[in-house]
């Protein structure tokens, strides 16, 4: 059975790929997460997650862009697929629906 929902880490990684756009590959994603999201996610975790996202169809990949500091090896660039965009949107909407359902008092407490 194929899981079609997004895990929390998967969502973050998918979002990062979307943020990075053309430049999204395992290294940039890992560094972005490290610097921007401030989360200590290991490189191996990022790599595995990217693979899993691709397997699930949220990402597509393409080889290219060999550089010297990589020892001449190509990079695997990731791009969010339409299915991935849909999943991100659904996740965002589900969250917003939950935020919206919150009573004003609680909301005030949260944002203080």
């Amino acid at each position: 059975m194929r899981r079609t929902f997004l895990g929390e880490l998967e969502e973050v990684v998918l979002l990062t790929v979307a943020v990075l756009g053309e430049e999204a590959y395992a290294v940039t994603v890992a560094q972005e997460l490290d610097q921007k999201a401030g989360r200590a996610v290991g490189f191996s975790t990022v790599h595995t997650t990217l693979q899993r996202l691709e397997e699930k169809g949220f990402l597509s990949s393409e080889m290219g862009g060999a550089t010297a500091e990589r020892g001449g090896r190509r990079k695997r660039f990731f791009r969010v697929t339409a299915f991935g965009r849909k999943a991100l949107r659904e996740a965002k909407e589900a969250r917003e629906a939950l935020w919206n359902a919150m009573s004003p008092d609680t909301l005030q407490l949260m944002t203080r």
Partner: protein
Amino acid sequence: MERKPTSAEPPRWATRLLASWSHPDTREELQGDMLEMYAYWLESLGKPAADRKYALAVFRLMRPFARPKRSNDYSETYSFSAAMIQNYFKIAFRNLLKSKTFSAVNILGLALGMACSLMIMLWIRDERAVDAFHANNGQLYRIYMREYFSGKVQGVIWTPGLLAEELKKSIPEIEMSTPYSWTNPQTFSVGSKIHKQATNWASADFFKMFSYKLLQGTPEGALRDKSNIVISRNMAEAFFGSAEAAMGKAIRFDNRKEMTVSAVFENIGTNSSLQFDCLMTWDAYTDDNSWAKDWGSTDPLTFFKLRRDADPAKVATKMRHLLDKTNRDAGKPYKTQLAMQPFHEYYLNSNIKDAKMDGGRIEYVRLFSFVAVFILLIACINFMNLATARSSRRAKEVGVRKVVGAMRSMLAGQFMGEALLIATLSAILAVLLVALLLPAFNSLTGKQMALPLSEPMFWGIIAGLLAATGLLAGSYPALFLSSLNPVRILKGALKFDSGSVWVRQGLVVFQFGLSVILIVGMIIIYRQVGFVQNKNLGFDRENLVYFPIEGELFNKYDILKAQLTQVAGVKEVSHMTATPASNGNGTEGITWPGSDPNDKVRFTPVGVGYNFTKTMNLQMADGRDFSKDFPTDSSGVIVNETAVKVMGLKDPVGREINWGKSKIRIVGVLKDFHYQSLHTAIRPLIAYLAAREPQGSVIVRIQAGKTPETLAAIERICKKLNPNVPFTYAFTDQEYARQYQSEQIVGKLAGYFAFLAIFISCLGLFGLAAFTAEQRTKEIGVRKVLGASVAGIVGLLSKDFLKLVMMAIVLASPVAWYIMKQWLQGFAYQIDIEWWMFALAGVIAVLIAVFTISFQSVKAAMVNPVRSLRSE
């Protein structure tokens, strides 16, 4: 690709781990990513932390069991794909067909070499199988004696007849034992049927110890009673029609004893060293030969079977001094000890050297193992040589294959595979050849070998042979060709360095060296066998017939002699113990004034009749022959010159010496003559007059050219006088020659193998010469245009090869000399190894080489230069 000159690199082991164990689908980008990440960590965290993080990530990213799922953009070079294998075969067969001569030379050479080694292997297998069929094989032993005297030791395989029983009594580990006498022909009769059969005597344990198959009767009941006789299927069929009919029937032995058939055994095959048609009990033997009950006698062989759990070494120590209590050595100058040898080893190790069983047929087994390996080696060298020489033709192919991605290992595999393919073809041919030649080989070696096609062992050996040959023969081309540099090959700048030429020439030298060794060996063996057979023995062995004194002849010798001398073709008649061809008897009881009581000199005694020297055509050196005119001759003896020398007598005739306790007088001295094979030196001989009780054989000198009618007359007389015994006779010269049977066989085999070795070497030379001639076509053309003669060009082409052959001769001669010197040690009388033998071998090798090369070189020299030069 350039690498940034950075001092900080990730731990190499981790990188390597990543390269080999990460998921194959993502391996490339992962390795790149990790390098980038390392650089990032290095900058932000420092080297130790970066190293740690890198290693940790590597461990987490290992996917040792992952299989690639993604399809690749480029297919990998994969040498085991169906298309590639098909291509390999196609190319291999094309190459075979393209140059038919080379292929034929290759395959034929290898096939001959393999057939030859296969045949030798069959022979060795057959030799090793002798006596191995007994179920108790590991527990069976034979005894031999060591006689120590005055610091020397001498081995004797014959033992006292009482020993077998004594062994069982005094050594608990010995379960069974049997004496086993010398197999000799005896006369048996049933009604009017009279036959001579090879007879022996053994104890009741015999059939329990040895696994001779009984068709009738049981091992326990076979030799229980003195009147029992166990006969072979052949003998049963000859007397009674069948094995079943023979059981319990009576059979008359020597026309004096009635025996009862108690068991029938299957005819004994050639894989047994013990050969007999019938067995009777040892007790029956001692009844007839009372002296065999004496510890002092040495008569039968003794075999025994150990208990399964016994320790042979302990048993050997226990038996060593067993004879001390028997008083055997009382009054004699020597001490006798017992020793044992595993039963199955005797056939191959039957020589007694320094009182140890060592050597014998095993030496021939070893010799031929070497020959087999040598010949196979020569054939393999051929293959290597030809393949290397022709590599220039394959070089382009190698270049192209390398350019399109073949790795060195693949090319090596390809050439190895081709070698194996050719080896397979050769092996098939070799098996066919062996099947074809085996009958001839059998008749030569006197064996009954068959191709053991149903045995997996045989196919295992073939497969092993094939693999060994293929790998050996293919190794050099495979390693050499695959090492070529594609750029240089395809540019056409390929030049074989002197190294490869050197190797090729070395191989030719080696090959011819082996051939020269074999030729020299053949010459020397032929000469030695010829020498032995034609040597003046000191007596005239032509036209000398002898037949055993047996049955009623013991008492009728005088009548026999009177009648024989009447026959027109008979010149002289006499008799002697033993036979004229061989006399192996020995006595140590001779003493003379001044003899050393501690030194044992073994004399060979022979009891002779009147006229002995005349019949044998012996020369007297001094004194006279026995004569009826001197009645005192009954205590007289004739000795040979060696005996005189040993005793150190100045004026021997008329001297008195002692034999045991009796005094004897020397009446004559014979010139030395060979009464044994030339393997042994002439020993002191002492001939005594045995005219009163003739024993052994009647010897008859017949006239040359009248053999058939004389023999017929002799037979008629014998039949009349001795009706119950079939007449059997032998010619001395034939019997004498038989003693060198194994040398003759070895000589012939060495001849065949030498021929084969030369032939195979020449095949190789032929191929090489063809190759050189082909390579130098242009050169020859130019030379001819400039006026070179055909002879000059032939000389030019032959010179290089002849140099190699010469070198081979020079190198091989000392080796051949050494080997053959060793072989000749087996003869007391040897030929000298002379220089011309090596010269002859060299000339033969050179002539054959020249003949082989000239085929090609003349052909090359005759070619019209226009044809060879026009395409330039």
